[in-house]
């Protein structure tokens, strides 16, 4: 068992240091790159804290939709193939809701400030 602090706490502390203490000292292209780096660390923190429950829910939905069990990646491959072949489409019960929920969960980690995400997340989780 690895000891504390957790990866989340460590990465968060580094991100805060770069943001609060280093960023004000830097300008120009290097400042831009530093901002990208801080954004990456923030993304990692969001993934570490949010991805596990979202992945578990996605996995459960995929098992329901496909009537099969397997790894998350394999079930996603299967769904992609079924959409490509037309075996399932937006009229298939649960597909639209699944794609929306999965996409919203990805954006919550990747780009929570993206305007389309903010608009759609604001609609709540009561489904379409």
């Amino acid at each position, binding site marked *: 068992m690895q000891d504390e602090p957790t990866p989340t706490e460590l990465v968060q502390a580094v991100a805060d240091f770069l943001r609060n203490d280093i960023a004000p000292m830097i300008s120009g292209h290097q400042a831009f*790159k530093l901002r*990208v*780096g801080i*954004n*990456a660390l923030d*993304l990692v923190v969001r993934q570490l804290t949010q991805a596990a429950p979202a992945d578990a829910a996605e996995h459960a939905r995929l098992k329901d939709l496909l009537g099969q069990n397997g790894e998350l*990646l394999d079930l*996603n*491959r299967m*769904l*992609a*193939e079924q*959409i*490509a072949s*037309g075996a399932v*489409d*937006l009229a298939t019960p649960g597909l*639209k809701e699944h*794609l*929306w929920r*999965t*996409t*919203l969960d*990805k*954006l919550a980690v*990747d*780009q929570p400030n*993206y*305007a*389309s*995400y903010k*608009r*759609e997340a604001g*609609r709540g989780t009561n*489904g*379409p």
Partner: protein
Amino acid sequence: MIESELSRCLAAFMPGATGVRGAAKLSGGASQETWRFDIVHPDGDVGAILRRSPKGYGAAPGRAAGLDNEAALMRLAHAAGVPSPEVLHLLAPADDLGTGFIMRRVEGETIARKILRDAEFAEARPRLARQLGGIAAGIHGIARAELPELREMNATREIAELAREYHSFDWPRPVFDLALRWLSQNDPGPSAEVTLVHGDFRNGNLIIGPDGVRAVLDWELAHLGDPMEDLGWICVNSWRFGEIDKPVGGFGSREELFAGYEAAGRKVDPGRVKFWEVMGTLRWGVMCCGMMQRFREGPDHSMERAMIGRRASETEIDLLRLLAPRGEG
């Protein structure tokens, strides 16, 4: 030093010029560079831009039209009244600068977020969607016979290319499959009219001043195809930079864009525009995935490229908003 090489070629296009100063590289990968510099002239200095492939990088990769074609297209656009920098000189082998061209520098802003937010563009902003319609019409109206040789694209071929690229990543994205399926089922077929298509006509590739559009840049992806492609691409949500209720680059409405286009004597097919907006959204998503691929495999192991890979999901939510909307707006 690039300034002395530039100075040597001045006589070919600007008699009386005495030298070059202030050369600075604006952007550049391995194969293509953009420089700014000032030409010193007794009648007043002239701001200029060099776009070139350095020696040893002749061929244009993949989709690129090539620098000679870019220069030819900018000259045609300029002659057709499309706001476009004046091309001053095509590089010749004797210039020893590689291949490319020198153009007059147009002052103004290209950074999309500044154009959308800064006060100095407040008066221009509400007019831009309509103005861009007129500019697109000018580009599409350039006579085929005058154009240099360009690749020809159509919807069916573009769908196949995006599908091939997406599958090469070997990473399932069910929303991309949904989009590819929709595109195949809604493929409008070959366009009745095939014209010059700019190929990257969007906020970010325009020089804007308080008076409006001053220049259309980046002709690198120019090709022959369905003119509605340019109108769809400029509406892709990724180029609205947060102003998501103003489809045309964050500036204004589709209706304004279309009105400007039709006032210039050309016809809009809104169904095709919507088709190309979906295609464009998917295309940008696939390009984001490609950046991540190059980060992992290629020589450009930069965090910027890596992080662009995490923007592909932005296009997934935009595709869902287009194809499986949950409500208005």
